[in-house]
C-alpha cells in the first residue's frame, strides 16, 4: 500500500487515507527493504488480511477452520523442506527454540519470511500463494511450534 501511495503521491487524499488506516509496513527479512503487499491481479483482500495489516496479529491463529486449510497448504507447499512435523530437512526446523530469524516469533516476522522469502530455497511465497493463504499456513505453523 505504501508503495502505491508513493507512486501516486499526486493523489494526496488517497495517501492520507492509507496512512490514517495505520497499515503496518512489512519488511524483507533479508535487507529490511519494504515488501510490496499490493494484491496480485484478481487477489481478494480478505477481512483477515486487512486486520493483519493493521495489527500485525494473525486473526486465524487458533481458528480451527483456518488451521485445517493451512495444514493442506503446508502439506502442499512447505512439507517438502520443513517436514510434516516442522522438524526440518532442507529448510530449518520450525519447532526448535533456535531460529535463523528471531523475527518469526511474531506473526509479522513470520509473514515477512513466508511472503518475502529468505535465502536459497526459502522463496517468496507471494509468488505462489495469496496473502490470505499465507495467514492460514502461518496459523498452522504456529500449531507445530513449541509454545
Amino acid at each position, binding site marked *: 500500500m505504501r508503495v502505491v501511495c508513493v507512486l501516486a503521491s499526486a493523489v494526496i487524499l488517497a495517501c492520507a487515507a492509507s496512512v490514517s488506516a495505520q497499515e503496518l509496513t512489512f519488511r*524483507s527479512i*533479508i535487507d529490511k527493504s519494504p515488501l510490496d503487499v499490493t494484491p496480485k491481479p484478481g487477489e481478494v483482500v480478505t477481512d483477515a488480511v486487512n486486520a493483519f495489516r493493521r495489527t500485525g496479529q494473525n486473526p486465524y491463529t487458533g481458528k480451527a477452520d483456518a488451521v485445517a486449510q493451512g495444514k493442506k497448504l503446508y502439506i*502442499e507447499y512447505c*512439507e*517438502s*523442506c520443513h517436514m510434516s512435523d516442522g522438524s526440518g530437512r532442507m529448510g530449518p526446523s520450525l519447532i526448535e527454540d533456535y531460529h535463523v530469524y528471531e523475527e518469526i516469533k511474531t506473526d509479522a516476522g513470520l509473514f515477512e519470511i513466508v511472503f518475502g*522469502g*529468505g*535465502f536459497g*530455497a526459502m522463496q517468496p511465497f507471494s509468488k505462489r500463494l495469496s496473502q490470505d493463504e499465507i495467514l492460514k499456513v502461518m496459523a498452522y505453523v504456529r500449531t507445530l511450534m513449541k509454545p
Partner: protein
Amino acid sequence: MRGSKALLFAAAAMPLVAVMPAWGQTIPKKPEEVARPGGKLPGNPKLALVKVADGLNDPTGVSVAGDGSGRIFAVERVGRVKVITPDGKILPEPFLDLTKTNPLGSEVQTGFVEQGLWSIAFHPKFKDNGYVFVHYASLPFNGASIVARYTVDKASPNQITKDQANKSVKVIMNVPQPYYNHYGGRIAFGPDGMLYIGRGDGGWEGDPLNAGQRLDTLLAKLLRINVDTADDVAYAIPKDNPFARADYPQMMSLFGITEEGFSRIKIGARPETWAYGLRNPYMFHFDPKSGDLFIADVGQNHWEEINYQPRSSKGGENYGWNLNMGTKCHPMKGANDTCPQVGVLPIAEYPHQEPYPGAPKLTQGWGCSAQGLGVANYGGMDKAYLVGDWCSGRVWGIEWDKGASKWQMQELMQAPFQFTAGATDEKGYVLAVNCYCFYLEDKGPVANPPGALWRLLPANEVAPGMETAKVKLPN
C-alpha cells in the same frame, strides 16, 4: 590414473621442486589438502548479482554462441531455448522449441524435475556451420538422454523453425536411462574442439548399478566425443581418449608385454569415457583462458565435490563415486568412517546441513547440490571456479592460492534463490540462472514461478539503474 602418475612424477622430480614454478596448481593427494568453506580467495572478490532478464520457465541451462552477437541462450526445462538480446530482452519466439517438433506431442520428457532439456552448446565454428547441440530427456525414448544437433538457417538466426528443426536434426547419442534422476546435463565444447557430455549415474540413490566404477557403461562419466563426422556417422571416438583402445580388437600376446601394458586392456570399456567415478556432473566448465576444466559433481546426502583437471590432462581420472563422495566414504555411516581413497581427490568439497548421519545441523556454510556456474578471471579473481548451491543459494569461489600453495574455498554471497546453472558470457563474465523448482513443490515445467538470468559482476562495476539481487555478503 592421474593420481598415480602425478605421484610418480612428484617422487622423481623431488630435487627439482625448487625450480618448478611455485604457482602451479596441484591436485590434492591427501584429504587435508582439499579446500573447504572458510578459506579466502587471494583477491578477496566482492561480487553482485545483476539481473539480466526475468520470466524464464524453470531455466536449467545457459549458453552463448561465441559468434560476437552478444546473445545469451537460456534453456527452459520444458524443452525451449530462449534468446536474450544484449539489452536484456527475451525474444518471444523460442530459438528452438522441442515441445513442437514432434507431431505426437513434446519431444521432451519432463515428468520429474531432473528431466527435461538441460543444455545447448554451440559448435566452435557455429558462425560458419550453424550447428547447435542439445541434451535432454526424451519422451519417445522413455526418458533416455539424447544429444542431437540442429542447424540454424542463416536467414533466420534467432529461430530454428519447426521445419528447419526437423529438416536438419541429427541424433548424435541416445543413452537409455534406468531411473528418473541423475542424468547430468551440461554439454560443452572443450578448447580441443571435442564435445564433452556430463552424464550422471542413472539415478535412484547409492548408484545401485555401480555405474561409477564400471567402465562398460556411459553412465556416471564425463564423456568426450568428436562430432565433426560425416552426416551418416553419429560421432567418432577421439584417438587420444583414455580408453579409446582399451577394448580394441587385437591378437593376444602373453609374452613380451609389461604388466602395465596388460592393465590397459579393459574389456567392455566405453571409449567415449573421459573421466569416471562421477555421480551427477550436472555442470562442468572450461576456463576460457587456460582451457583447464572444473567439474561440479552433485553429491548424495552429506557432501558436494568440485574436481579440477589442468588442460594437459590425458583423461582417465576416477573421481571415486560410489566408493567415495568428496574425501568421505560412501556409504557414510558416521563422523569417523575409514575407507580406501579411490582415484583422484577433488580440489574442494562442502557439506550439507548434516555433514554425516545424525550430525548436529550446521547453521552456516552448508548446501545440498553443487551447480557450477563458470570460471571467472575478473574482479580480483584468477581462474576462480564459481559454484552456486541449489538449496542454500550460496555462491562459493574456488581458486588456487599461489602464496599458500593450496586451493581456497570462500563463500562469496548467499542469494535469495536456488541456482540451477551457469556459463561465461562472451566478455568472460559469469552468468547464472535460478529456478523455483525444488522437488516436491514442483508444479510442472511451466507452472512454477518464473526464474531469471543473472550476471555476477564485481560490486564496483554495478551501474546505476541495474537491478541487483538481495544477497547476503559474508562479514
